[in-house]
């Protein structure tokens, strides 16, 4: 069996075991393809994303874990390091700082951390980055909260 497949099975088992331990992350493997995963992550508290549930799509490459998985947001999110249209994420560990010791689960944790601590100095969403860079935290928060309400929360009534 391929190394990547074997490793993904291990991760799958691990995920089943840890489900209760980390209620913020819900990783699901595609029924027919172990290289496709989706995750639901909860917006971290005390951020404009609080209360939202965001969906991530994982595409795992053949040489995984030697190469990082490709991850993007399926849920629209207003965040300096996430492309507003494509959901692409600018995160060092998904690019050159990747290490095979990372797992899909730990990638989710890193993304949650990124949501709580945006890096406005390397923006993928310039409008969002500029708001933070110019010190308009209030403007940023209200924009981000609006999109969280619109896209990441169940519609009321």
């Amino acid at each position, binding site marked *: 069996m391929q190394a990547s497949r*074997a*490793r993904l099975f291990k991760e799958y088992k*691990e995920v089943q075991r840890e489900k209760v331990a980390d209620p913020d992350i819900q990783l699901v493997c595609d029924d027919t393809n172990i290289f496709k995963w989706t995750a639901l992550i909860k917006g971290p508290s005390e951020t404009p994303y609080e209360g939202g549930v965001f969906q991530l799509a994982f595409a795992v490459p053949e040489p995984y874990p*030697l190469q990082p998985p490709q991850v993007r947001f399926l849920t629209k999110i207003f965040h300096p390091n996430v492309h507003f249209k494509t959901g692409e994420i600018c995160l060092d560990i998904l*690019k050159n700082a990747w290490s095979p010791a990372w797992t899909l689960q730990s990638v989710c944790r890193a993304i949650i951390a990124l949501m709580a601590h945006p890096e406005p100095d390397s923006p*993928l969403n310039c409008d969002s980055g500029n708001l933070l860079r110019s010190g308009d935290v209030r403007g940023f928060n209200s924009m981000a909260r609006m999109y969280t309400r619109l896209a990441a929360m169940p519609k009321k009534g």
Partner: protein
Amino acid sequence: MDDEYMNYEEEDENYSLDDDEQEDENYNEAEVDVEQVTSTKSTSQVITKKSLVAAQKESLVRVMELLSVKENQARTLLIYYQWNVDKLLSVYIDQGKDQMFSCAGLTVFDPSLVTSKKTMNCDVCMEDDLPSDVMTRMECGHSFCNDCWKEHFTVRINEGESKRILCMAHKCKAICDEDVVRKLVSPELAEKYDRFLIESYVEDNKMVKWCPSIPHCGSAIRKIEDDDVVEVECSCGLQFCFSCLSESHSPCSCLMWKLWKKKCVDESETVNWITVNTKLCPKCYKPISKQDGCNLMTCKCGQHFCWLCGEATGASHTVQSIAGHSCGRYKDDKVRQMERAKRDLDRYTHYHYRYKAHTDSLKLEDKLRKSILEKAVSNAETKDQLVFKEYSWVIDAVNRLFRSRRILSYSYPFAFYMFGEELFKDEMSDEEREMKKNLFEDQQQQLEGNVEKLSKILEEPFDEYDHEKVVDMKRHLNNLSNAVDNLCKKMYECIENELLGPIQFGIHNIAPYRSKGIEQATEFCAEICQTSDCGSSGSS
């Protein structure tokens, strides 16, 4: 223009009319002297495929002896410090061994990380209870199973990252031990890995560059001294600029030449694609395309820049360093640029026409050289006088012709950029520009007139001439060669003192004028080879 030329001829004629033979001898002696001086002062060497290992070894041995480290450690250090032994040593003195080692990704062995457990876990494949003999611990202390290491090395080598294969652990900056890599990967891959390590000596070394010949001759050129811009000739015959690796282009600066070439290729599809999809790095001017990620770009050369405006920024791309960017600001200039475009095109056509005319003449170089050589040889075979037997004077003149014609042809793109607005718009006032342009064009015209004259005399059927007439022709050629040489020298002086000298933001270094033509690199011979040679000759 003609007047100028006549002046030269008359002066020289008066000077050398009386005793031809003596003058000739002096001339030849002078030539020989210059030859000797330049050959002893060779500043570049050719490193062939065979001597590459020896050349690398030279640096390795120096570091191994000075720091008493193993060969693989020396190599890792040198790759990190780009084969600059002096820089490495200064870091060693300033910051100490530990700091230098950890920067380069070498860790000093730490026995406390050794575990005595019989079975271990591999964090990559997540297998538990692996016997310790299928695990390998790197010097940084991280252990993973051999299968995972092997996969990791294979992927990295195939991705062309042989030179810096990092440990698999998160945030661990340690470089994997060469010997472990070689032991674990397949023999073919180990070979590839070794090749990358050896070639690093050229790829990462500021002082060594591959000869840009196509097809590649396999050699690299090493500069002995870290001087400014030079042009060299490889043993394969190719003359190129050591800075930008394109064909020799003095008196154009590398940037001028690059812009000119790009302009000349015109609107081919490739150029279109490159203009639309890439931005030039503000430091090394390589075109860069963006695939994904944020707008902070990092070029291979280490320069950071903003993708939106293309301007250089700091690594952190902070609020401060991005200030002053005109990112996103509409420029009124664009409109005026359109109007200027037509005038620019006319200008370009003017310079390009002249550049092309001389370049085309150069293309006939081989043919002319051959036909002149034939005439000279047939003279030497059939006639007795010294001037026929010893025909280096005509060959010298041919070489002078091509050398100066090359300079002449490149002086047109130089003038195009020097007096255009693309590069030096704010560097001088309009009057100043006009004045300098006239000065330069005068010199250019003088040179051009003399080069054409030289070319015309060389085409004379001197194999049909009698002795007197050939002596006369020789004298003419000598005088003209000297005149052309002087004019080239003067033109370079003018460029250096009047034109590029006062430019404030100078990245426009040009290779200096060399009367004897572009320097030929000498063959590299490693000291190791030499000593082994000595040994063998001593025993025989």
